C-alpha cells in the first residue's frame, strides 16, 4: 500500500499553478485507496441491507424484519439508553474535575488532568474485566459492603455494567474538551459580568458555562458515538442485547449471507451520523470560545475551608474510580486465584512467562499491524493535507471528507464490510483476500486515518506559506523547499499523528474481531479477548492487558513530548 502513496512526498508542485499530472496521479491513487477500502466495503453493507437475499432486488423487508423483531428493537433502545446514560455519568465525572482545575487554585490540578487521561490508555474491554473484580456482584467493593453493612450495589449488573465501564473510560473526552473550552474563555468575559454585578454560581450559569458549551457538546457527542459503536465491552460483560454485539453475533453465528447483520450495521451508521449531525447543528455559529482577542484564561479563585475538603474528596473518589481498572488488571496479572475475596489469594509471575512464551506472537503481530497502520495513515495524511492545503486541485476537499467520514463507520461495520466485499476476491493460491492479515492492517489504517489526517493538517497549517516563499525567493527549488523547510517543520506533527494511530490501532478490537481468521494472525487485543473468555485464561489475559497498557502509555507519552517539542520549536503564530 505504501508504494501507492509514497510518490506524494518527493513530487510537490507549484501552489498557484494549474493542476499538474503529478498532483492528479497522487489524488487518483488516494481516491482509489479510499474507494477500495472504505467506500466499497461500506457501500456493500448498505447494498446488502437494502436488497433481497439471492435476487439482488431492492427491498425494505429487511428493515421491516428488524423493526418486527423484539430482540433488535430492544437492542436498539438498550444501545441508545446505555450511550445516553454513559454521557450523563461521564459528565458527572468530568464537570467537577474540569471546573476545579480551571477555575480554582487547586493544588495538583496538573496531576488530576494527567490522571484523567489514564483510562484512555486502556481499551475499555480490558478495564471491564478488572472492574468486575472490584465492583461485580462478588467483587471487592460488594464483598466489603456486604460484610460491613449487609447490602450490595449492582454496579455491574447487565446494562449498568456497560454504562459504568464506558463512563469511567470515556469521561476524559468530555474533560479534555471542556477544559480546553474553559481555558479559551477570555478573562474579560468574566470580568465584564462581575463589573455589571454578577458573581458566583449565577455568573457560571449565565456566562462561563454557555461559553464552554461548544466544548462540552463536542465531547459529549463523541462519547455517545463511541459507546454506541463499541462491540468488545458489552461482549466481555456478557451483554448481548445491544446493537453492535447483535451485528457481530449475527454475522459470526448465522453467517455473512444473513441480511440482519447488515441491517444492524446500517442502523449503527445512521445513529452515528445522526448524533454527529445533531452536535454539529447545536454547535453551528457557536464556535466563539476561541475567537476572543487578548486576555488570559479565567481568573482562579481560592477554595475556602469546607470547599477544599469537598473538592479533594470528590477528586479522590473520581481518581480511585479511574485507577480501579488499572489496579485491578495489575493485581489480576500477578494473582494465582482471585475469586470471592477482596484481594487475590497469592501472587505469581507465571502469567507473564506464559504470555511472553507461548503468546509472544500476539505482541509481535500487534507491533507489526499497528506500525504498518500508522505508516499508511501518516503517508495518506501528509498527502491529503498537501493536496487540500497547497493545491487548487478540483474536488480535493472530497479526499478530506471521505477520509474523515471513516469516523462515522463503527469498527464492527467496517469489519463486516471487509468480510463481505473481499471474501469473493481470491489470491492466486485460492485464499480469500479477507482472510489475509493485511486486511486487518488496512481496516486499522482506515479506522485511524481521520485522527492522523487532522494531525497532519494541523502541522501543515502551522507552516506559513511565506516561509516556503522565503526559501524559494532565496533560490531553493520546490523540492528542496519541501525537504529543508516543510518536512522539518512538520516532523513533530507527523510523528504525533503516527504515534496516535499506532497506539489506538494497537488496542482496537471491533474490526479485528471480525477479520482475524486464525490465531497465528491475531493481535494482542484479540488474544486478550480470547483469554478473557475462560476463567483460567484471565490471569494471562490480564498480563497481556498490562502489556497493552504499557505500549499505549509509552506511545502517548512519546506523542505528548513530540507535540510539546514541536510547539516549542514553533513558538510563533502564522
Amino acid at each position, binding site marked *: 500500500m505504501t508504494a501507492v502513496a509514497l510518490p506524494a512526498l518527493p513530487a510537490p508542485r507549484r501552489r498557484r499553478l494549474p493542476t499538474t499530472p503529478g498532483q492528479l496521479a497522487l489524488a487518483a491513487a488516494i481516491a482509489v485507496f479510499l474507494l477500495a477500502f472504505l467506500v466499497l466495503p461500506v457501500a456493500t453493507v448498505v447494498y446488502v441491507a437494502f436488497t433481497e437475499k439471492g435476487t439482488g432486488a431492492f427491498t425494505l423487508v429487511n428493515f421491516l424484519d428488524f423493526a418486527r423483531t423484539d430482540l433488535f428493537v430492544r437492542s436498539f433502545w438498550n444501545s441508545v439508553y446505555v450511550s445516553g446514560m454513559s454521557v450523563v455519568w461521564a459528565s458527572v465525572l468530568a464537570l467537577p474535575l474540569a471546573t476545579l482545575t480551571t477555575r480554582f487554585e487547586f493544588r495538583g490540578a496538573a496531576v488530576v488532568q494527567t490522571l484523567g487521561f489514564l483510562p484512555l490508555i486502556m481499551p475499555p474491554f480490558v478495564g471491564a474485566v478488572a472492574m468486575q473484580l472490584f465492583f461485580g456482584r462478588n467483587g471487592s467493593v460488594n464483598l466489603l459492603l456486604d460484610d460491613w453493612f449487609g447490602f450490595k450495589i449492582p454496579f455491574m449488573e447487565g446494562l449498568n455494567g456497560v454504562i459504568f465501564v464506558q463512563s469511567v473510560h470515556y469521561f476524559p473526552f468530555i474533560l479534555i474538551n471542556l477544559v480546553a473550552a474553559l481555558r479559551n474563555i477570555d478573562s*474579560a468575559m468574566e470580568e465584564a459580568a462581575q*463589573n455589571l454585578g454578577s458573581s458566583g454560581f449565577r455568573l457560571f450559569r449565565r456566562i462561563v458555562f454557555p461559553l464552554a458549551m461548544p466544548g462540552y457538546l463536542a465531547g459529549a457527542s463523541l462519547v455517545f458515538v463511541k459507546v454506541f459503536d463499541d462491540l468488545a465491552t458489552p461482549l466481555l460483560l456478557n451483554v448481548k442485547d445491544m446493537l453492535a454485539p447483535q451485528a457481530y453475533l449475527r454475522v459470526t453465528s448465522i453467517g455473512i449471507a444473513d441480511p440482519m447483520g447488515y441491517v444492524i450495521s446500517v442502523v449503527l451508521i445512521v445513529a452515528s451520523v445522526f448524533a454527529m449531525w445533531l452536535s454539529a447543528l447545536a454547535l453551528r455559529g457557536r464556535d466563539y470560545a476561541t475567537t476572543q482577542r487578548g486576555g488570559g484564561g479565567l481568573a482562579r479563585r481560592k477554595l475556602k475551608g469546607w470547599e477544599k475538603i469537598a473538592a479533594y474528596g470528590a477528586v479522590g473518589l473520581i481518581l480511585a474510580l479511574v485507577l480501579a481498572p488499572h489496579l485491578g488488571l495489575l493485581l489480576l496479572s500477578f494473582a494465582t486465584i482471585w475469586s470471592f475475596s477482596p484481594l487475590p489469594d497469592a501472587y505469581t509471575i507465571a502469567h507473564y512467562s506464559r504470555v511472553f512464551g507461548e503468546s509472544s506472537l500476539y505482541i509481535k503481530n500487534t507491533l507489526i499491524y499497528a506500525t504498518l497502520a500508522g505508516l499508511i495513515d501518516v503517508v495518506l495524511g501528509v498527502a491529503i493535507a498537501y493536496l487540500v492545503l497547497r493545491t487548487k486541485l478540483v474536488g480535493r476537499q472530497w479526499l478530506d471528507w471521505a477520509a474523515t467520514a471513516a469516523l462515522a463507520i463503527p469498527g464492527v461495520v467496517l469489519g463486516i464490510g471487509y468480510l463481505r466485499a473481499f471474501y469473493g476476491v481470491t489470491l492466486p493460491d485460492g485464499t480469500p483476500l479477507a482472510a489475509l492479515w493485511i486486511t486487518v492492517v488496512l481496516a486499522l489504517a482506515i479506522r485511524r486515518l481521520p485522527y492522523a489526517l487532522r494531525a497532519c493538517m494541523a502541522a501543515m497549517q502551522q507552516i506559513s506559506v511565506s516561509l516556503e516563499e522565503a526559501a524559494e525567493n532565496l533560490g531553493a527549488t520546490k523540492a528542496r523547499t519541501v525537504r529543508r523547510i516543510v518536512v522539518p517543520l512538520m516532523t513533530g506533527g507527523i510523528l504525533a499523528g503516527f504515534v496516535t494511530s499506532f497506539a489506538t490501532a494497537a488496542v482496537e478490537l471491533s474490526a479485528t474481531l471480525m477479520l482475524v481468521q486464525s490465531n497465528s494472525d491475531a493481535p494482542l487485543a484479540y488474544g486478550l479477548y480470547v483469554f478473557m473468555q475462560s476463567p483460567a485464561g484471565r490471569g494471562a489475559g490480564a498480563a497481556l492487558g498490562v502489556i497493552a497498557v504499557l505500549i499505549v502509555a509509552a506511545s502517548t507519552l512519546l506523542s505528548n513530548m513530540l507535540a510539546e517539542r514541536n510547539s516549542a520549536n514553533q513558538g510563533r503564530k502564522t
Partner: protein
Amino acid sequence: MTGPNSTAAAPPLLAATPVDISISGVNLSYGSNHVLKDVNLEIRPGEFFAFLGPSGCGKTTLLRLIAGFNEAQSGEVRVGGRDIARLPPWKRDVGMVFQSYALWPHMSVARNVAFGLEERPLPRAEIARRVEAALDLLGLSHLADRRPSQLSGGQQQRVALARTLAIEPKVLLLDEPLSNLDAKMRVQVRRELRDLQQRLRLTAIFVTHDQEEANTICDRIAVMNDGVIQQVGEPMELYERPANRFVAGFLGTANIIDGRMGGQGTDRRFEAQGLAPIPVPTTAPEATGLMFRPQDAMLDDPSGPDVLTLPGRIAQREFLGGTIRYVVSCSGREVLVDRPFQSAMTALPVDTPTSIHVPRDRIVWLTA
C-alpha cells in the same frame, strides 16, 4: 454608522450627580514586581480623566484596581467619599468598558445590555426601559437583535458602552477603548465619547498610551511611568511645563540638554558640555537639564533680546508635511528644529552652518 442620538425619547440615563474619586497611598506588587508605587490621585466630579503612559507603566493595573479586579497591598480607593477597596467587583457600581469589549457571543445585543440590569435585579419594565434608553443613546436600536459577531468593531464598542451605561454606574472606566478601531474611526469615536461624557456629566477615566487621544478627550491627565505617577495636569500644562524628562519626552518631541547649575547669586549659570555657560536668573531651580520644543527654536534669527544661541550645522532635513524638521548638529549633540512649511519656501540644504536661537522664556528647567 450613525452618531449618538441626542434626542433620546425615553427618560435619559444617569440623572445622578457626578462623584469624585480619591486614591491614596496605593501600593500593589506581584511578588517582587512593584507595579504601583504609592499612588495618590484626586479626580474631580464629572471630570474626564486619563491615565497616560507606555505599556507596563501600571495604568491598566490602576484602572483594574478601581474596578476591583486587582487588590492593592495598601491604600484607599474612595468613590463619592465611600471606600470601595474591600468590595468585590460586582458590588462597586463602577462601569468598565474592556479593551476587547468582552461582549458575550452567546447573547444578542439587547441581552448583553440587559445583563447587568437583570443581575441587580430590576423589575422587567425598568429593564426594558433602560435597555431601550441605552441602545437609543448610542444609536444601536436597530441592532438590538443582532449577535456581537455580526457587528463592526465600532458597533461592538458602542454595545460595550451601552451595556456599561445601562447600569447607571457612578464612574465610567475605559480601558484603551479606541485601540481596536482603525485610525479614521478612532478620531470619530473619541469625539463621540467626549460628547457623551459631557452630556451625561459622568466621571470617567480613560486609559491610553496615545498622548493625542488623551490630549483631545480629557480634562486632565495623569502621566505614569514605572508604577509612579509622574505628573498630573491639564494637557497644555503638561506640554508646556513638564515636571521631568519622562513627561517632556513622552508628551511630544523635546530637545533636552543635560548639565548642571554653577555659580552663586547674579553669577548663577547653567553649564553643559561643549556649550558656553548660560546665565540664569536666581529664581531658576537647581536644574540638571534644560528642555525646549523643536518649534520654539529658530534658525539664524537672533531677533529679540533674550535668546539662547547654539552654533551648529544642518545634519539632516526631514519634510513632515506641515513642517520641515532640521536635525542640527551642535558640538556633538543633535538638536531638532521645526519650521512651518510654506509653499515656495527654500529649505536650508544639508551641511549649511547655522545657529539655533531659543527665547529664554521657552526654556524649561528640568530637575529630574
